[in-house]
C-alpha cells in the first residue's frame, strides 16, 4: 500500500504539469542542477559531524555513558538494551539503523525490545545532523534553546514509545 503513494503522487504531478503546459523537462533539469551545489555546500558539515560521532563511538565513551545512565533510563521505563540506541540516535542515522538491525536480530523482530526500538527510531530524528545541515547555509552561530528542546522531545518520545509498546 505505502509503496504506491509516492509513485502515484509523481504521476499525478507530471500529468498536472502536462495539463498546465509547463516545460517539464527543462524545469526538472533546472531543479536537479541545484543538487550538486547543495551537496558541495553541505559536505564539509556532514563529514565533520560524522568524524566526531565515529571518534565518540570508537573511544567507547558512549558505552561508558550508557552504563552510567542505565539507572536513570530504568526509572524512565526505557530498557537497558536500548540505551545506546537512544543515546546515538540524535547523532547518526546510519549508525542507529545499524544498531536497530542488530537489536532485531538479537531479540527477534516481534519482541518487546525490538518493537520499542522501532517506535523510538520511527518517532525521532538525527537532531545534530539536521541542525548542522539546516544551519550550515546561514550566518547563525547561536542556536539558543533549539538543541535542548529537540533532545527533550526525543527523550519524551522514547519514554512514550516504551510505554505504548507495553500497552499495544
Amino acid at each position: 500500500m505505502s509503496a504506491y503513494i509516492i509513485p502515484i503522487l509523481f504521476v499525478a504531478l507530471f500529468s498536472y504539469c502536462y495539463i498546465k503546459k509547463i516545460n517539464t523537462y527543462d524545469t526538472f533539469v533546472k531543479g536537479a542542477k541545484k543538487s550538486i551545489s547543495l551537496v558541495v555546500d553541505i559536505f564539509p558539515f556532514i563529514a565533520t559531524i560524522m568524524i566526531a560521532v565515529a571518534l565518540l563511538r570508537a573511544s567507547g565513551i558512549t558505552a561508558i555513558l550508557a552504563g552510567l545512565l542505565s539507572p536513570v533510563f530504568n526509572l524512565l521505563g526505557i530498557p537497558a538494551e536500548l540505551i545506546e540506541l537512544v543515546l546515538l540516535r540524535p547523532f547518526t542515522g546510519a549508525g542507529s539503523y545499524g544498531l536497530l538491525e542488530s537489536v532485531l536480530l538479537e531479540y527477534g523482530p516481534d519482541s518487546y525490545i525490538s518493537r520499542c526500538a522501532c517506535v523510538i527510531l520511527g518517532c525521532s530524528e538525527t537532531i545534530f545532523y539536521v541542525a548542522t545541515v539546516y544551519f550550515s547555509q546561514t550566518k547563525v552561530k547561536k542556536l539558543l534553546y533549539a538543541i535542548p528542546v529537540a533532545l527533550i522531545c526525543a527523550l519524551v518520545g522514547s519514554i512514550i514509545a516504551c510505554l505504548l509498546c507495553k500497552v499495544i
Partner: protein
Amino acid sequence: MIISSMCFLLWSSPATIVSTMVEASSGALKLSIDLCAVYAVWLGVLELVDASGLGEKLAKLLHPLIKKLFKIDNNEIEKMIALNMSANMLGLGNAATPMGINAMKALDDGSGVANTAMIMLIVINATSIQLLPSTVIGLRASAGSTAPADIIFPTIIATAVTSICGVCLVKLFSKIKRRKK
C-alpha cells in the same frame, strides 16, 4: 566532544584515531553522493511543484498552521516550509532537507542568533510527524517479523506527542526570552 574522545583513544588505542577519522569521512563522502542523487530527484520534482503553482496551493492549505507556528507573513518562505512539512509527514526526510535549508536561508536575519521561527523549524524537523516509518518497517520485514507494520500506530502517537511537546516548549522558551528583554 572531539577532544575528549581523542584523549580517550590516545590512551586506549592510538593507532585507530586517524583511520577512524578517515573512515568516517569517506562514509560522509559516500553519503553525500547518495544524497546528491536523492536531491537531484527531489529538487527536480520541487521545481515542478513550484512551477505548476501546486506549491502555492499547498502553502495556502497549511497557511493557518504555519502562521500560528512561525508568525511569518512571506509567501515564498511559507511555500518552502509547507513543502518541508509535507515531505516530513510522508517520511521523506531526505526530500525535506533541501527545502528546509532554503527556508532556513530565507529566515536568516544575519544577526548570528537563531530567531524563534528558525528554532521552530528545526524542532519541527527534529520531531516531525511521520505517517509512514517506511525504513523501519522495511528493516523489520527483512528480519522476519510476522506483522512488520504493527508499529505504525504507536509510532504515530509517539511522534504526535513529541511534536506537540516540541511546539509548546519553543513557544514557552520564546515567551520567557521576550519577557527578559
